[in-house]
């Protein structure tokens, strides 16, 4: 199993940020942390600041598209003004400094809250080099760099963000570097108010688990393959759109024509050669099309024949099995009839009158449907003859299919070549003669070209999807060895969340087909499979998702932290109690929990708070710290005392 490390947040210092009374210094407990406040006082902002101060303004979920035939990976980020818009009075000096540890490395990192820039990063007492630059500008350069195969002249290593992210990769040892860290922080360690579920996101299940169990090169290749597949999907959609909007295409053609100024004589020579080639290809195409049509007819006949033989075999098999293992009525009748006709019950032995009719069952009285027995030796021979003939027709179908595929491929290639030639012929003709008739004539051909490009893009997408599926299978295979430990942790958390009256199971089904969208893991509650989140109530789906996240964190890591936004907002009192029990279990494994709480009646926060002594709990009371807190009578102290 691969070892890598996640950040452990120790301190956070916020300066000149007018939403809070600054400087605001938070020393995080390694057990329980509560961010408390009334609505609109900045609880979510503070939680998001925790992640921002570590990894910057990334939102997670890399988006991949194709632009100008190149793959472009876009790592979405917040607007530069995300935190400054939440200030009461704008201040360019606003900043957040967090101290955190990753494995043995001590980090002190400062980000601007005014424009989200990374201002300074000190690792083990050493300041990282590089120019300051906004994340947005850096991302543009990063995307360009990747699209140019890392050969861009604008070097990323000039910038501080680059060195910081490289250092994060080194400390965490994560395959996929900061991209994987972003996914871990936002998809596993943060459960926000939007309740974005991770467990049922099939894309995430194997990427989250995969990095722990397959070697890092393979994992990176797999992540790359996923992005490539997405890009190819996007390329295919684009080609498809192109096909649908040919008017634009034609317009583009006209514009291109204006740009081209080729020599007429040279073009005429080229035209002669292409037309000659096109004629030859046309003849080949005609021949192949005729052959294809003939073979296709033969194939259809063979398929029909195969279906007929299958049906006939089916009838014979039915007769065979009915006669091989006939109803045991005869045996029962032989055993019981004599006693019954004598007036004795064959089971209890008491005297009893039975009305027995030869055409009805001696026990239940139903009409008997015992068909005449047939000569099964003849049936068996007929059955074998049909099996042989089925095997022959199957072979015939297979051979014809292979032949048809070959001819089909040849036709496709010839068509492609012919179309290429025709397009060029039309282009040359249009260039030589300004007569618009040529263009009209070529429109249809160009439409065909667009269609072909679309088909080619679809084929490339399908092939990449298939490769991705094979890689996903390898991850599944590797997961089997670690699954028992992971499953045990999952079921422990799920049982704790759901309570004793429910029965939970997590399994790794043997995959039956090559469905890329099939989930890796299957969750069952009370014996019923819950393939989709809507198959559970809101609290149940939250519990399942939290169980998944907790088991990822505690199975594969010794220590971590987890941030949960207002966990009590959707739970009733009974489920709050179960959640408390589970959160405590998570903390007792050596992890820190950071949660936000509203000033509302909730036993969850109260029970968790009461469980620990004051040294183990950090309370960030926004009714005292936030400048937007108008009602101080709802302070945390009063809230806790009232609950008591």
């Amino acid at each position, binding site marked *: 199993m691969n070892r890598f490390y996640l950040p452990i947040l120790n301190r956070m210092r916020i300066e000149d940020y007018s939403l809070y009374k600054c400087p605001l210094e938070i020393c995080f407990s390694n057990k329980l942390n509560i961010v408390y406040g009334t609505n609109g006082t900045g609880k979510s902002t503070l939680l998001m600041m925790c992640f921002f101060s570590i990894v910057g303004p990334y939102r997670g979920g890399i988006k991949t598209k194709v632009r100008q035939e190149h793959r472009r990976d876009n790592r979405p980020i917040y607007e530069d003004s995300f935190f400054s818009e939440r200030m009461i009075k704008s201040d360019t000096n606003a900043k957040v400094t967090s101290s955190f540890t990753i494995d043995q490395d001590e980090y002190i990192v400062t980000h601007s809250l005014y424009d989200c820039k990374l201002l300074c990063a000190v690792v083990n007492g050493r300041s990282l080099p590089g120019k300051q630059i906004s994340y947005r500008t850096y991302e543009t350069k990063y995307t360009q760099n990747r699209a140019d195969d890392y050969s861009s002249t604008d070097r990323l290593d000039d910038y501080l963000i680059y060195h910081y992210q490289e250092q994060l990769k080194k400390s965490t040892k994560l395959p996929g570097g900061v991209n994987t860290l972003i996914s871990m922080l936002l998809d596993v360690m943060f459960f926000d108010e939007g309740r974005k579920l991770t467990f049922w996101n099939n894309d995430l299940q194997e990427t989250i688990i995969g990095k722990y169990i397959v070697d890092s090169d393979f994992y990176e290749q797999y992540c790359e393959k996923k992005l490539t597949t997405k890009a190819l999907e996007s390329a295919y959609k684009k080609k498809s759109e192109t096909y649908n909007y040919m008017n634009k295409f034609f317009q583009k053609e006209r514009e291109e024509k204006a740009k081209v100024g080729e020599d007429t004589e040279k073009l005429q020579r080229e035209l002669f050669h292409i037309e000659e080639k096109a004629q030859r290809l046309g003849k080949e195409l005609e021949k192949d099309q005729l052959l294809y049509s003939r073979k296709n007819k033969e194939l259809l006949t063979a398929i029909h024949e195969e279906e007929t033989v299958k049906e006939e075999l089916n009838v014979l*098999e*039915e007769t*065979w*099995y009915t006669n*091989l*293992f006939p109803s*045991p009525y005869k*045996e*029962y009748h032989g055993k019981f009839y004599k006693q019954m006709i004598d007036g004795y019950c064959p089971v209890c032995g008491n005297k009893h009158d039975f009305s027995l009719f030869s055409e009805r069952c001696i026990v239940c009285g139903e009409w008997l449907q015992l068909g005449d027995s047939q000569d*099964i*030796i003849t049936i*068996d*021979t007929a*059955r*074998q*003859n049909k*099996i042989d003939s089925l095997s022959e027709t199957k072979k015939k179908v297979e051979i014809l299919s292979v032949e048809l595929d070959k001819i089909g491929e040849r036709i496709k290639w010839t068509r492609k070549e012919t179309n290429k030639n025709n397009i060029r012929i039309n282009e040359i003709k249009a260039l030589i003669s300004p007569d618009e008739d040529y263009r009209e004539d070529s429109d249809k051909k160009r439409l065909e070209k667009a269609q072909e490009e679309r088909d080619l893009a679809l084929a490339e997408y399908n092939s990449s999807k298939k490769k991705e599926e094979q890689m996903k299978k390898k991850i599944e295979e590797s997961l*089997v*060895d670690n*699954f*028992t430990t992971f*499953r045990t942790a999952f079921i422990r958390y799920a049982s704790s969340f759901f309570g004793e009256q429910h029965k939970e*199971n*997590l*399994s*790794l*089904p*043997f995959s*039956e087909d090559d469905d890329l969208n099939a989930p890796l893991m299957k969750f069952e509650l009370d014996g019923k499979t819950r393939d989709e989140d809507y198959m559970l109530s809101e609290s149940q789906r939250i519990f399942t998702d939290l169980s998944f996240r907790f088991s990822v964190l505690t199975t594969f890591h010794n220590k971590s932290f987890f941030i949960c936004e207002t966990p009590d907002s959707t739970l009733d009192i009974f489920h709050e109690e179960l959640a408390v029990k589970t959160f405590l279990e998570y903390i007792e494994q050596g992890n820190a929990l950071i949660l936000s709480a509203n000033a509302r009646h909730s036993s969850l926060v109260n029970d968790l708070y009461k469980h620990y002594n004051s040294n183990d709990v950090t309370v960030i009371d926004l009714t005292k710290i936030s400048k937007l807190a108008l009602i101080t009578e709802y302070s945390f102290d009063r809230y806790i005392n009232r609950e008591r």
Partner: protein
Amino acid sequence: MDRKKSMLAETMILFLFALSKTSEEVNINTYKRYIYLYYLTSGFINNNSDDIEIIVEKGDIKIIEFESIISDFVLKEYIETEKNSIIIKKKLLDFVDALLRNKDGALIRRYKEIQPFVSLIQSYNDQFVFTVFFSEPTFREAPLRGVSEIHSANSKLAVLLKQFKSKVCDTRIDEYDILAYWMDYILRNYYNIGADGDAVEE
């Protein structure tokens, strides 16, 4: 009897007939494991896709309809059961023998698929078959995956054996040789190293 059950019953009766060549008595659990291993390797050795449902519970298996078919055979007086043993009766032997006399039938082809498997598996004693059964990858993986119901068509063993064969690159090598090689490999490892990692005498 529905089709699936009938097909399993056909396999089971042919197995009993093949087993009777060496002994009229067979342990019911060993017999059940033979059937299990046959179906799990069938996709490799016979390339057929017959499927049976198997429930994995408490470190053993339950083949759906197996018990019911045994009861039917008892009722038809093909067999007798005594504690954990099945005694194969003359009625079964006569019945199957009469059917197998038809050299042009489908049943004898099926028997020719089963008989070599029975010969191979019978060449190992019950204890070894028990070991092989517990080392079969589908059975071993099911609890690791948290799966309690498996289909023989999803056999991991068949996939692994096919992969092995494709790597051998020798078309002359027989499927049964590969299967026997796998069984020997399991037994060699198991009896040299032992389940708990200690050396064990063969």
